[in-house]
């Protein structure tokens, strides 16, 4: 039996220890904002945070989660008020939108370590997240918008609705 938290809620799991977190989130607790894209850690569509760091949930086995804190897009802010979500809306970044939750989770993690990322920082942090629609230039813009808005808005207030981060 593994115990852990997802978006602030305590969870228990005693199924296949090798099952990726991705399928637990999607099939078992119906948090479908986290997407399947490749199953091999190649595209970033399934990005979530484990203990605050961005990971590929398709490569994160359930047995690795004991005592960990998981945050998904649903836990970032249910109402879309997180500054990164706001920035995404401001620049109309998504096209089909499928990869965007993974992109947002990756961008949030980037901004935590680099509040004012350079283009090189953005390339380096975001290169694992594929967008087939080709929204990269808007993603880059949105990250910069979020970086500027975050410095203006107190972090605690902006992330109030979030889970454990």
């Amino acid at each position, binding site marked *: 039996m593994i115990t852990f938290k997802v978006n602030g809620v305590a969870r228990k799991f005693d199924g296949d220890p090798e099952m990726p977190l991705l399928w637990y989130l*999607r099939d078992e607790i119906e948090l479908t904002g986290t997407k399947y894209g490749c199953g091999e850690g190649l595209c970033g569509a399934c990005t979530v945070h484990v203990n605050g760091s961005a990971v590929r949930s398709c490569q994160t086995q359930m047995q690795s989660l004991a005592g960990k804190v998981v945050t998904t897009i649903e836990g970032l802010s249910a109402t879309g008020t997180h500054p990164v979500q706001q920035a995404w809306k401001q620049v109309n970044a998504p*096209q*089909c*939108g499928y990869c965007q*939750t993974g992109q947002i989770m990756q961008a949030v993690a980037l901004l935590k370590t680099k509040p004012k990322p350079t283009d090189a920082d*953005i390339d380096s942090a975001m290169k694992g997240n594929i967008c087939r629609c080709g929204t*990269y*230039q808007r993603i880059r813009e949105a990250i910069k918008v979020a970086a500027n808005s975050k410095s203006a808005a107190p972090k605690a207030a902006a992330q109030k609705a979030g889970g454990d981060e």
Partner: protein
Amino acid sequence: MNRIEVVTRRTFLGGVFSAGAFVLAAKLMPEEALAAPLTKAEKAAWNPNVYLGIETDGTVLIVIHRSEMGTGIRSVLPTVLADELEADWKRVKLEQAIGDKKYGDQNTDGSCSIRDFYDAFREAGATARHMLVAAAAAKWGVPASECKAQNHQVVHTSGKKIGYGELAAAAAKLTAPNKADLKLKTPAEFRYIGKSLPTVDIGDIVTGKGTFGIDAKMPGMVHASIERSPVYGGKLKSVDDKEALAVKGVQKVVTLPHLTPPYGFKPLGGVAVIANSTWAAKKGREKLKVQWDGGENAGYDSAKYKQQLLETVRKPQKAARNIGDVDAEFAKGGKTHEAEYYVPHLSHAPMETPVAVADFKDGKVVIHTATQNPQAVQDTVAAALGISKENVECHVTLLGGGFGRKSKPDYVAEAALLSKQLGKPVKVTWTREDDIKFDYYHAVAAMYLKARVDDKGRPTAWLQRSAFPSIGAMFSPMANTGQGFELGMGWSNLPFDIPNHRAENGPAKAHVRIGWLRSVANIYHAFGVHSFADELAALANRDRVEYLLDLLGKDRRIDLGQRDARSQKFPLDTARLRRVIELAAEKSGWANRKATKGRALGIAAHWSFYSYIAAVVEVEVDNAGKLRIPQVHIAADVGRVINTDRVRSQFEGASTFGAGIAMMSEITAKDGAIVQSNFHDYLIPRIQESPVMTHVHLVDSNEPPAGVGEPGVPPMLPAITNAIFAATGKRIRELPIRKQLA
């Protein structure tokens, strides 16, 4: 209420529509609409037509019958109606249509949603507006001419106002005006058209609440993962499922029948592992031991096939267009130039793989899926199950990308067949490996071009030959040459003013499934034709922009011999092509930018989906041969622009999509099977590989709105390789570029 009188389907849907859509429009008869399952919009208090309802509380419901795969169509097309209706967009609700022929054509493909439905949606909105005004005038006992619609209300010259909701019931009793009596808005009166309204789904998308096909579920559903023949058309020989059945969560292993050619949209057949979760189904499938009989395509080798195609284009083939006498001109001798080009198979690889959920019960099936074409789902599933299409109810989710893949509903039929077999709802989820290995591939193509040039380097004769497996082969095994619709995509409609021109096409047999991918045959045709034009310009040592404009010749409309309504509405007008070339040159600072070693601009201009696009691409090639694209300038004349921001975003995306095809994407086959399997070997651009900045310059136009989703792709390929030539002297004639610059 008398619904017939308020639906003026003939005048409403007349004019621009193709014969097919016109016939389907007749199905808008309200009695038939009532006989079918009603959407919320149809239950609204007033239904002047299927697309629109107005509730007594003033809520406007618009049925959107096109699929949302990232173009924004689900948001943008309804704004056209809302604009003419003079509705407050905040009070508009959308209803995604199920698959039903009463909506007319629903195939969201071919960059045609706005092109085909702009007029109809405008007229629908205007019809409703007229009737609301008439209802208000009657209520007040004043002439309608003293009333006007304004932001969800009808206003009288005296200052009296009444809301749409209060007028709905009265308006429903009126006779709809004739189309001739409709007063459409002038462009100056537009409140949404030409603006940049945000998409309706953006809030759901950034919070993870949007429902894509993969998010659909039904109570009691089981999950299926399907093993298919690695060779196209291969048959199942044997299966050992003992170990698969031992995997925890696996419930059953069942066989899907092998169908006979032509395959069209039919499912491929195979062995399905049924389990209680996506993960268990996949894990179980990995334990299957399956033997296949590859059949006639087992020897398919794309490297050998490439040589075959090249040999084909080196020999005379059947002409698709013949002007003047190319042979006589060549026989004169003088300076000639020839070149061969090659573009490989490509895979669509939408970020969301094909997924469908189906529930078959009592002779009917309910489906939730990401599809570009819910009516093709109805047809395909009906044929697979042996039921009528009216018994196939297809709900359309958001699509995690489509690019043409999701207009082919083979995966939906798989779910429906399994549900029928198992007697419960089934979800079929394709893995990424399935998606890459069992796609309908973009056709591989070889091209040969030859020109004779005069002393200024201008062609006096231009011969072009192509060979590629046709999409038509999916539907008719006899189709072993390029079909008219394929040759009409940038091959038989060369816009250059050349006195002797012949476009030929030779045979090529399909050994994998072939399908349309974003911009289709324009991809290879544009690469061949516009690379060759650049080669001739280089040979003559002429400025590329000046040379291109010279090739275009005098402004004129080119007679392509097509007499259908759509071709008449959208003639190929070289003046518009000239204008986008000039605009792209101006905005990129072409005249003042001289190529330096490793850094240069390239240009190409292409007409497709009735839109005129020029791309100027800047490339940097370092000493190690690494290619970077710092900026792209796309000038686009797409006719009237409905949503400026979404049009821009489509061209930004096309820039990356085209760059990916040019730079890195390639599908190959060996021993009949596709070699690539996931994003490590089927490469598509990542953020650091994509063009850094794509500037989109839209021509302000009052021409009818033309295609937007696809036409940005074709000119990108030759613009990139032409820039590489300018920067390095290296002419790229085969795609992808990959390591050719090293």
